[in-house]
């Protein structure tokens, strides 16, 4: 939007500099300028219109509708009935809902740090110059590209189900627990493994961060006799802490929103959509069940807004905490 406005005076000066062959332009100038600005703005809005329409129709509209539905009893067929805060009180009183909150929190608290650890670890390895570096980077990044897809979740299910490769390998070592995906206590670990495997995106960001750390700091530290660990703790970590913060924030938000992998690994087609005995019933999974299986769109909307509030709170806490551990270089803030 800013571009046309700044662009117009520049063009005006261009006309001014050219020879006065077009006759007297002086008196018309303010009106012509206004018209041109208006026209250019119009063009700008027109080119933006697909996005604006998309935003209004696909994001803002549904959000407003869902906020309204959150306070209604709505089964898709009958008109929504206003019930005030009943959906929220039902939610808090529902043991299945509380269970889904527990499962999700567990998944976030265990999965996110593991994923970031893997991302940072591999980024540290790949930051050093070695032959075939580009290949390794691409190879480690690939799972992130395809990771969110349904097909990977299906493959994951095939890997961790009964008598599949993981189960058979375990048996070689004398551990016989059967398939992970069918075990109400183990299925969540297979989901954590899936998210850790997709560490590529934060890894790339870590790599970029590591490149930014000035070499002189390491050289100076080395002269002072600092070892590898010491250099990592006292130079690398503080220097990449803004990047670390960014990754923590992004991955935490992502983890809260886990759905497709849980839905497919946990059952998807047929039977309980949330794993055996609700073992992999993450928050969005229960939201889906309430909305689409039980036709309770009002309750599902209320759950969605609850999730939004929770994620906003967690984000706020993370931002507040960054003062204590994120180190910005002077003037970079």
């Amino acid at each position, binding site marked *: 939007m800013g571009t046309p406005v700044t662009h117009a005076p520049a063009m005006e000066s261009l006309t001014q500099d050219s020879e006065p062959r077009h006759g007297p332009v002086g008196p018309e100038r303010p009106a012509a300028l206004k018209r041109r600005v208006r026209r250019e703005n119009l*063009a700008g809005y027109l080119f933006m219109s697909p996005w604006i329409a998309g935003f209004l129709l696909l994001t803002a509209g549904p959000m407003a509708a869902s906020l309204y539905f959150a306070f209604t009893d709505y*089964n898709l067929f009958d008109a929504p009935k206003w019930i005030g805060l009943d959906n929220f009180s039902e939610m808090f009183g529902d043991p299945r809902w509380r269970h889904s909150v527990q499962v999700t929190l567990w998944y976030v608290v265990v999965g996110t740090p593991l994923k970031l650890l893997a991302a940072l670890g591999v980024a540290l390895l790949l930051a050093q110059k070695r032959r075939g570096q580009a290949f390794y980077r691409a190879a480690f990044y690939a799972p992130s590209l395809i990771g969110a897809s349904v097909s990977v979740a299906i493959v994951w299910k095939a890997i961790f189900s009964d008598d599949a490769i993981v189960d058979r390998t375990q048996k070689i070592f004398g551990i016989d627990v059967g398939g992970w995906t069918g*075990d109400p206590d183990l299925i969540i670990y297979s989901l954590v493994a899936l998210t850790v495997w997709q560490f590529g995106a934060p890894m790339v960001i870590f790599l970029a961060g590591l490149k930014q750390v000035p070499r002189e700091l390491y050289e100076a530290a080395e002269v002072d006799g600092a070892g590898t660990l010491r250099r990592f703790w006292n130079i690398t970590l503080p220097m990449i802490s803004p990047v670390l913060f960014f990754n923590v924030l992004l991955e935490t938000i992502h983890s809260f929103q886990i759905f497709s992998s849980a839905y497919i690994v946990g059952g998807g087609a047929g039977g309980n959509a949330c794993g*055996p005995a609700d073992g992999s019933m993450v928050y969005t999974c229960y939201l889906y069940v309430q909305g689409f*299986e039980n036709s309770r769109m009002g309750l599902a909307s209320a759950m969605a807004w609850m999730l939004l509030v929770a994620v906003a709170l967690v984000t706020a806490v993370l931002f507040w905490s960054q003062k204590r551990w994120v180190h910005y270089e002077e003037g970079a803030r």
Partner: protein
Amino acid sequence: MGTNRNVDRRTILKAAGATAATLGLASTTACGGDGGTSADGTVTIRYAWWGAEDRAQRINKTIELFHKKYPKIKVKTDFQPYTDFWKKFNTQASGGNPPDVFQNAIGFLRKYDAKNVLLDLSEQVKAGNLSMDGFRAGLEKFGEIDGKLLGVPVGSNSMALVIDKPVYTKAGVKPEQGWTWDDYHAAMQKIRDKAGRAGDTGPYNVMYLYDLYLRQNGKAFFTEDGLGFSEADLTDWWTKARKSVEEGLYADVKKVAQIKPKSAVTGELSGGEFTWDNFTIRYTSEGKSEYGLAPIPTTDGKKTGQYLGSLMLSASKRTEHPKEVAQFIDFMVHDPEVAKIMGYDRGVPATQAQFDAFEPTDEVNKAIAAYETSLVEAGVLEPITPHPAGADICEAAFLRIGEELGLGKRSVGDAVKQFFTESKTALAS
């Protein structure tokens, strides 16, 4: 130069406008042209059903046949597995765009009738587009609710005990019509002790079996608008179940969950399980052993509480072609050729004409036919009890909570309480 730019911009704007107009036009045609009638009078109807590949192949063959007889009616099909089917249907129906004709079951009749989705087919029967004659064992009444004909049965089935025959023989157990729950319990012990296997998978979370047990005792799972049993009834049923799981009479629930989608019987975790008789086909293709059908245990030695269940075809109230839909349903339930193609895939054919047309040659289908004949001869069949709106959600809850009970994740009291809470919510909405 400045002028030039403006011209360019104008051209671009025009082009953009034209594109927008075209897009708008295209979307209008896409929405508006859904009447399903083309210039030469050919009508297109959409037919949706649940099932898997095997059923898809059979159904496609029956539709080819239908196209030959009714060249002016085109049928477009759509299928999903059971649970996905209903999610999609729900969304389509609420958006006012349900399929014209679709597979249906008793648990959904009242639900979608209450939501004004189902077409009353009795008009079409009167108009002569659909015949309700020639159905077996009173099945023509199956899809009737409050005087409206909301579904036409395509095939009937009944609950049965599918057994691993060699296991039963090894244990020396011979189930007979009229055996009691005590006999059954003794049989479970024999199978565990002599065949070294759990006797059953988990009868306590099969809603349709518990319904039979309740019916044997003068109750039923559902009344027209609620549950037909008390918390004490369920506590009793689940307490016995819990004990049997602990004693190894019923299969290890965790193992059963782990080997899904394979069944516990074919996975050799249990000697048998209660299910619909026409599902026997599945066991034979899945497992290595020889499988058979045994009768339902009774309380008094006579009454099994059984009825014929059925898959139905229903039509959408919003269909623009009720006549063609009725003709299609009529063809599907009466044409003998259809029965030869479908076999017992959706249960034993509902009409006598189709029943006579398909003579099973393989062991499994023969056993199913024999089982259903034996039910008719034994005179145990009764009318079905109603399924209120929300019955489908109650069934899902019964299955899930029963599984959690078996896993030891819930106490009996807790499980019963949870089931009643969830059911009340489901049946109220």
